[in-house]
């Protein structure tokens, strides 16, 4: 397959790109939700991210991309134990997908032709240690959403059906995208996404022309275009790897923790997930910028993405919660 449109060549949409880079640095942030109009580059960004991410080491043939031979689940059968490098998995979860496809099910074909009871892993197994991308997440059926929530929280997929009793690790970063005009997302699922960003079409001619020119360059002069942007993508990948390493050494002063708590109290966000995500995102941002310690500026730059979807929603408020977060940040963290 042809290489997707390069991540760094996406014009504008800084908030979306920032959020995706932060989850690449620290997958523990817990996913990105991208809401916005059609044709604003949501799917392009996710597919570009797949190509941008550094490779991971996996046991050859392991259905859940295990990092060590001893982690391979016993139902997967014998492995050679050889390690191979793979691109970070980015698995598409299509709308209208059946539960069997998501969690895995009895391998009907083997059961009927060979009489063996075998497990056929689903999309959750394939997404382990990678990304699970749900386009039009707001149109996803409720029972699939419930299932995803459960697995995303526990990091483990438990299958108890058709005489099978199987569990395997399923740690993945959820990336959801959608158009709020077509339906909204349940608050429970909203809260599980670490970061949320809203994208809009650029409003000025120059930006739009730049988008068109780059896309057209990609379509018509693929080799020349990729030669320019592959360099930039590689530089970003290096920066992500450096930031990952720096994350462990990063200092978090007490005053920043205090700021986090103060901000969340002022916004009245439910639960403590807001503070925790805010801090993780700020740390990732600091590491990405190469700072030695987290500062208030890092906190400010990620506050909108980390908190705007966690506020008690007034269903009739049209201004959007992003504005509310920005106002509170300006008040609480001068």
């Amino acid at each position, binding site marked *: 397959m042809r290489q997707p449109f390069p991540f760094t060549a996406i014009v504008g949409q800084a908030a979306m790109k920032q959020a995706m880079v932060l989850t690449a640095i620290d997958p523990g942030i817990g996913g990105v939700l991208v809401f916005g109009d059609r044709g604003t580059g949501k799917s392009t960004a996710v597919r570009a991210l797949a190509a941008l991410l550094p490779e991971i080491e996996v046991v050859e043939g392991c259905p859940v991309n295990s990092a060590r031979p001893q982690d391979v689940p016993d139902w997967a059968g014998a492995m050679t134990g050889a390690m191979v490098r793979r691109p970070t998995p980015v698995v598409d979860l*299509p709308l209208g997908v059946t539960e069997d496809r998501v969690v895995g099910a009895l391998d009907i074909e083997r059961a009927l032709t060979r009489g063996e009871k075998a497990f056929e892993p689903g999309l959750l197994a394939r997404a382990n240690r990678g990304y699970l991308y749900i386009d039009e997440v707001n149109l996803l059926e409720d029972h699939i959403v419930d299932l995803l929530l459960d697995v995303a929280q526990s990091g483990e997929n438990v299958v108890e059906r058709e005489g099978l009793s199987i569990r395997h690790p399923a740690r993945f970063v959820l990336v959801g995208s959608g158009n709020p005009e077509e339906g909204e997302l349940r608050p429970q699922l909203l809260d599980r996404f670490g970061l949320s960003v809203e994208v809009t079409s650029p409003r000025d001619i120059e930006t739009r022309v730049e988008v068109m020119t780059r896309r057209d360059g990609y379509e018509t002069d693929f080799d020349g275009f990729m030669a320019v942007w592959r360099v930039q993508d590689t530089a970003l990948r290096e920066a992500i790897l450096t930031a990952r390493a720096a994350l462990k050494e990063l200092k978090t002063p007490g005053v920043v923790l205090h700021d986090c708590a103060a901000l969340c109290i002022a916004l009245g966000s439910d639960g403590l997930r807001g503070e925790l995500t805010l801090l993780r995102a700020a740390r990732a941002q600091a590491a990405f910028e190469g700072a030695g310690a987290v500062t208030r500026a890092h906190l400010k730059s990620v506050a909108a993405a980390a908190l705007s979807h966690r506020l008690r929603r007034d269903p009739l408020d*049209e201004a959007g919660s992003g504005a509310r977060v920005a106002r509170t940040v300006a008040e609480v963290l001068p």
Partner: protein
Amino acid sequence: MDPLLPWERAELALAVLAICPAGVKGLWLRARAGPARDRVTAALSGLPLPLRRLHPGVDDTALYGGVDLAGTLASGHMVRATGILDRQAALVLTMAERAPAGLAARLARALDDPGFCLIALDEGTGDEALPSALTDRLGLFLDLEALGWSDTADIALDPARLAAARAAVVATPPGAVAQLTRVAMALGIASLRAPLLALTCARALAAWNGRAVVAEDDLQRAAELVLAHRGDLPEQAEEPDQEPPPPPDQDPGETEAEQPEAIDRIPDDILLEAVRAALPADLLAKLRAGRAARSARGAGSGAVTKGNRRGRPLPSRPGKPGSGLRIDLVTTLRAAAPWQGVRGRKAQGLAIRASDLRIKRFAETSDRLLIFAVDASGSSAMARLAETKGAVELLLAQAYSRRDHVALVSFRGTGAELMLPPTRSLVQTKRRLAGLPGGGGTPLAAGLKLAFEVAAQARARGMTPTVALLTDGRGNIALDGTPDRAQAEADAQRLARLLCATPALVIDTGNRPQPSLRVLAGLLDAPYLPLPRADAQRLSSVLAAALGD
């Protein structure tokens, strides 16, 4: 340059499609099945890609391929079926307006990869429409509805000219991209796909015309073919209003002498902001609870439907497992067991035939739909349309928290209009509600009829509809659009009898509660609530009495 004639447009669009099908991504063809459409589809044979036909119910196995279960069982070794999307193709989707969101998402994904194009045959009428995931991606659009047989001709595309156009390398002048972008912005097109598709189309047109550089004409034609139909209509697509109906003055003995002149005074359309209205906090919850207690037909939250994926198990039935259908293994084995001797069972394994397969079924409860039928007539607008909007907003907030779908029907002038088809989007509902104009007569019967139709459609789609009627009850336009108070009332009551199978709620927004509306509520078997002026306490007690709890 003159605009294209309709059939010239069709010919040009097909030429573009035949030159670079994967570039313009496809064609949205809005036409009923008929000879005119056949002439267009016949020309699709000129495409350089193989044609594959799909229908809206196509399942994942057919799309992506998979194990051919029947073939596997018959031959005893694994047989794989190839999928439609395995190879590059021009996909022809019939009855595209019925394509579910899931299929649209899969096709959109395929279109994002190079090498696919989609011809969506849209036979939709009225509110049925192609999913927006597809309309945004398909470059070309044709509407043949207005064309008769005599307006059309066979489309003959010269293969040699097509081949030359496909091979041609066309340069784009520096200003062309900016020009298309500006046109798209001027038309209010937010999506960035549209100008890109127009650019591809312009190149194809230049190649078709034997030019080495895209010319002004090509850009203009491309904008006509690709951009024109995407132009955003203003949210409030108001058709020019007919003259206001004559003041309904059939009964001189009416006590409301001020009403006819009120209609005269107010402008034809007035837009009113929603204001806060007094409604009890949990109206919908009470309605639901009251329903369940009152009648045997209201079974809890939603009606029970038979599904095959989730819910309470039902007995299995014979069938072929596929996407959405799960095999019931135990029953399948049980069905196969008695035949093993006859089938000459081998040393190991069972001899299972396709006819033994049983699939699981489940019963589940369906989604709820709340249909607001809002009276936006002159009498209502004068009196309390603003408060009515407030009341709908309150109910909306409740519906939102319950994850109900909502639809909005408004009636005024001489007829009713579906302002918003069933949706879960609060944003849209709020926007439509804010833009709801008032003025004209009160076609209560037409409003009921439309609400009834929406409810019937929703039920067919597996939802459980509830109608909330907000009116001041002075129906004065009969179903046929004539101002006749007596006929209007008879029509409304006739419809109410038909509607009574659907759970409903009647909210009287008049200044004085109307006895006739109470009768109507009785016929609808619905709770009747006069909306008091800022008297939540009283309304709450009325409600409690109406629902009997």
